[in-house]
């Protein structure tokens, strides 16, 4: 295989990542479908309580006699929207602070890292409750909480990657040839830490989903009757032995979502950092 072909191939996503992307797109489609009530009204009481899957309620009914199918569809939408919005914010902030701290070092590095460590020292759910108490319960509080919970780890890892990149010859060469800070960071450092951000983003997404579930459970996140995967799984956990369909539907979808995000994240990392060997996370 000649060099051109190899480069070309490395710029494509491998089949596994493509499958992940496809699955994710499918989930997005399902979420869009719930907006037009494709599976039915997620809040409507349609049948007896706690019935196993059957005609009229293909994923069973919950403790209020609502069909689980439209609720899972709505849950996918809520969770993906909240978590991805939060992770995008986290990724943007972490990339900015992490690269700056890693490249500039010195006092700026100390300041950013100490603040991040301060955030890191709080248990996730305590931090989330604090945010919800200040911002008031609701989706905004959920997004802000996920950002605060996921930002410390991602910033530290981006900084670590940026420290390594900062010492590379081409960065030094760029600096010597008079490139400004924004150009060095944006053109030379960022692309080389993008893999870390992509992989951490997938991790943050799964953390985000669990924080969202915890917050909604405490009444600080998604408000009833809106469904999210976190809410549905929490509720389903209560009825796990008696009405397992309540947790199987959202559970399977959650596994699918996280798996496809992870696989896709892995593929993205290969795409950005083709020379490194493939890892599972």
């Amino acid at each position, binding site marked *: 295989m000649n060099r051109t072909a190899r480069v070309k191939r490395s710029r494509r996503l491998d089949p596994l990542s493509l499958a992940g992307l496809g699955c994710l797109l499918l989930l997005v489609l399902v979420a869009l479908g719930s907006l037009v009530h494709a599976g039915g009204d997620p*809040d*409507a*009481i349609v049948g*007896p*309580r*706690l*019935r*196993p899957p059957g005609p009229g309620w293909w994923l069973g009914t919950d*403790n*209020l*006699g609502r069909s689980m199918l439209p609720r899972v569809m709505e849950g996918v939408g809520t969770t993906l929207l909240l978590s991805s919005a939060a992770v995008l914010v986290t990724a943007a902030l972490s990339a900015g602070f992490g690269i700056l701290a890693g490249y500039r070092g010195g006092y700026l590095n100390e300041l950013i890292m100490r603040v991040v460590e301060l955030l890191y020292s709080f248990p996730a759910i305590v931090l989330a409750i604090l945010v919800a108490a200040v911002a008031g*319960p609701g989706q905004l509080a959920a997004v802000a909480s996920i950002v605060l919970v996921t930002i410390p780890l991602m910033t530290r890892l981006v900084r670590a990657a940026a420290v390594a990149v900062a010492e590379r010859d081409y960065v030094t060469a760029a600096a010597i040839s008079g490139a400004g800070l924004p150009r060095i960071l944006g053109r030379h450092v960022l692309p080389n830490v993008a893999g870390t951000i992509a992989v951490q983003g997938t991790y943050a997404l799964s953390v985000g989903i669990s924080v969202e579930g915890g917050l909604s*459970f*405490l*009444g*600080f996140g998604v*408000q*009833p*009757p809106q469904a999210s995967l976190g809410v549905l799984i*929490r*509720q389903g*956990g*209560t*009825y*796990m*032995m*008696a*009405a*397992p369909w309540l947790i199987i539907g959202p559970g399977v979808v959650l596994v699918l979502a996280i798996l496809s995000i992870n696989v896709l994240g892995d593929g993205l990392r290969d795409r950005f950092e083709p020379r490194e060997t493939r890892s599972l996370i």
Partner: protein
Amino acid sequence: MRYRLAGSVAAVVLATSACGGGMEAAPPGAAATGSAAAPGYLAVADGKLPAGGALNVAVHIDSGAATGLDPQLADVATSWQLMSLVYETLVTVGPDFSPQPRLAESWDNPDPTTYVFHLRKGVAFSNGREMTADDVVGSLKRLLAAKSVWRGQLGPVEKVAKVDAATVKVTLAKPYTPFLAALANVPAAILPMKEIEAKTLDPAKEMLGTGPFKVQAHRQDVSWNFARNEHYWDKGKPAADSLTVTIAPEEAARVAAVQNGSSALAALGNVDSAAMLAGAANVKVATQATTDFYYLMLNSKNPKFADPRVRQALNMALDRKQMAEVALGGQGKPTGVTPAGLPGACDPATLPSATAGGAAKAKELLAQAGIANLSFTLSIYSTEPAPAVAQVIQQNLQQAGVTVKIEQMDEASWAGKVYGKVPATFDAALSWFAGYADPGMVTTWWNPDVAGFNAGFMQADKDLNTLIAAATETPAGAERDKALAAVCAKVDTDAQMIPLVTRPATIAYRADGVSPSLYATEGYGNLLRLVADARVKKG
């Protein structure tokens, strides 16, 4: 009074073989499992078991110290429940809601406005000092002078006087039928007035009563430790040597505590607990019917609900049967303001809102009131099953074209939002009242001038107040039933606080850990009412 109890939220629960065909609700007022108990009881403690041992129970909230420990100022059922372990009242209620002797051995009612109480001999506080008629007179006078919510329930007490060392006479200005039932609740407990007056005891900080237990230790939001009161007058009680009340806000934690035996008894909130725990080894679940009921508060000081037609329209659109069946798993009952289940209570099916014509008529009435696209926020706390009731309300009102946004929070934040500001700023809220033992008692809370706590969101209605007074003055009988029915109908059309469905209480206990006594129906939200009888099983 505002009453909330029992469980919260998610629970990782266990065993049962009900996976195949869905779950059937346990009938209210019946033990899901276990042997037949005496009439009026879900369970009766086995007196043949040896006394002694340490009893552990788990509840969902520690409301005690938040508002202080003075029983006269306690205004929520969870506080009354805890304080009832230490404090006792002159009378108590039996399984049929009839007044029963407690610190008063007997009483005479020579005329409708005079009650003469003959005090029990040999009653002592847990510090060993004997209870006197002065303690009784002093306690009642202190309550009448206190800024206590319960003051409103005592009725038109004119005079409290000591007749002799063992007799106390209470004179009312007018007849007041629920008087004994009002005396049966913890805020009317007999306090050690000698110590309080000598200022050697601050009842807001320390509990000292004649009850079966005395406090040993308290860690806020963690646990209460009680030891038996060696001076307790009812010899042989309490059966247990010590009692630990663990505070576990998460329902899952309470379920787990009963499953692993670390708690012998726990209060649960999930209405499906009985079905879900049906297969768990050595765990019994009993569903206690209560006279407590959920009610919807529509803030009439908020312009949205100032027009009575709007409130009436919402009331018409509510489907109480669906709330009882769906949100409460068939364990609740639709109710008017007189709690369903109490003798003399009105029939909710005959109320104006129930016969008006449902959502379609509600829409018409809203249109008449010039309201289109009504939308409001319903504030609730996350303790189950309140969120389930709220979601059924939301579905019901949607049928009438009304949009409800549910705002869920923890109980403390909820209380701050609903009772914290005068005038209140919320749109609508959901809570429950204890129904007590007399159908006229809870109606008193519909008079904001007497209740006080709801003056921030409720306008007094003179006609309704007159009807309430008439119902509480009339002696029990057909005449009173009529008066109560009139209150029911008026509350229904007033629709500022709308009664919905009765609240079931669920208790799980270890069959190999405790033999408890439990009433089949409870009126004051007190799951631990008979805990002094409970026998601990050892080994």
